[in-house]
């Protein structure tokens, strides 16, 4: 059930069977959500962290007039709120965009891991640092990458992230979000998103249709987006 988490760890760290068993042992309880459900609420005390194992969710905040800014798309294998352990109360919420299933890691068990297995604690810390890195890259996108570059950048990022957890086929992947949700992430209206998707398709770079992303020319898409996957910290760490 939590094998996709192991894939994201194994991508970066040597990961022993004992460490896997430790997490398997502590991560038993699941919860299911339908689109629109809040997985991790803003402003309430949280006692467990949620590992997304199926579906797509998003990290977002709303403005006073109800506009939603999506700050990250979560995919299977992502701990959506590991940082709720030290923070206890989140300043944003995690919302299911599709049917979702999570596996809980109780915060008291994270305390136990930190005390008994510092290496695994560092691995979990690393995961939250990658989230922070993704947020920094999104800031650059929102502030300094215009139009189709910004859209292309997201499709590149999601390709690399889905690939780590085995959810790509060649350069195609399912990305079950709406154009409106893409707009809420990228700061465009849905009609503008639609127009830019048309441009990207006409340029032979990528097609997004029926929730399927088909990248036709990954090199050219990355070049347009000025995409450098370094911020995803893929590949084995030294320790």
């Amino acid at each position: 059930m939590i094998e996709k988490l192991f894939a994201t760890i194994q991508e970066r760290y040597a990961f022993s069977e004992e460490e896997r068993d430790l997490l398997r042992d502590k991560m038993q309880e699941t919860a299911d959500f339908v689109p629109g459900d809040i997985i991790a609420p803003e402003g309430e005390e949280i006692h467990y962290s949620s590992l997304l194992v199926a579906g797509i969710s998003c990290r977002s905040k709303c403005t006073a007039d109800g506009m939603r800014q999506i700050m990250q798309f979560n995919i299977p294998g992502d701990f959506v709120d590991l940082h709720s352990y030290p923070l206890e109360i989140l300043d944003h919420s995690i919302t299911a965009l599709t049917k979702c299933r999570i596996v809980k890691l109780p915060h008291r068990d994270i305390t136990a891991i930190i005390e008994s297995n510092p290496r695994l604690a560092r691995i979990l810390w690393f995961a939250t640092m990658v989230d922070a890195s993704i947020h920094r890259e999104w800031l650059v996108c929102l502030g300094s990458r215009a139009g189709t570059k910004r859209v292309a950048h997201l499709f590149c990022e999601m390709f690399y992230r889905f690939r780590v957890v085995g959810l790509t086929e060649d350069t195609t992947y399912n990305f079950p979000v709406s154009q409106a949700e893409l707009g809420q992430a990228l700061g465009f209206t849905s009609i503008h998103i639609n127009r830019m998707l048309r441009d990207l398709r006409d340029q032979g770079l990528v097609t997004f249709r029926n929730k399927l992303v088909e990248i036709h020319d990954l090199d050219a898409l990355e070049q347009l987006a000025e995409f450098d996957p370094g911020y995803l910290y893929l590949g084995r760490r030294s320790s």
Partner: protein
Amino acid sequence: MEPARLSEYMRFFFHLHNDIETLDEEGRDLPDADAALALAIDEARLMAAESVKTGHLDLTHNVEVTDESGATCFRVSFGDVLAIADRQEKSHR
């Protein structure tokens, strides 16, 4: 006023007719036609602004809104939603 329940929402499609046609296959669920018109006006202004960035604005470019049957509800052209003053007009004031 009670907010409309999602089941009462209607789906509207926002097609963009500018230098090329971009048809909306996904649509947006909105409470009523007024909400669709308001959104179309916002979208038309934003897309006109995008045109301005390229240095070329065609006021006949438009956003067409259709309902689920494919019937056109409105067509909002860029010129309909922009008040444009030029220097000559101003100098007469």
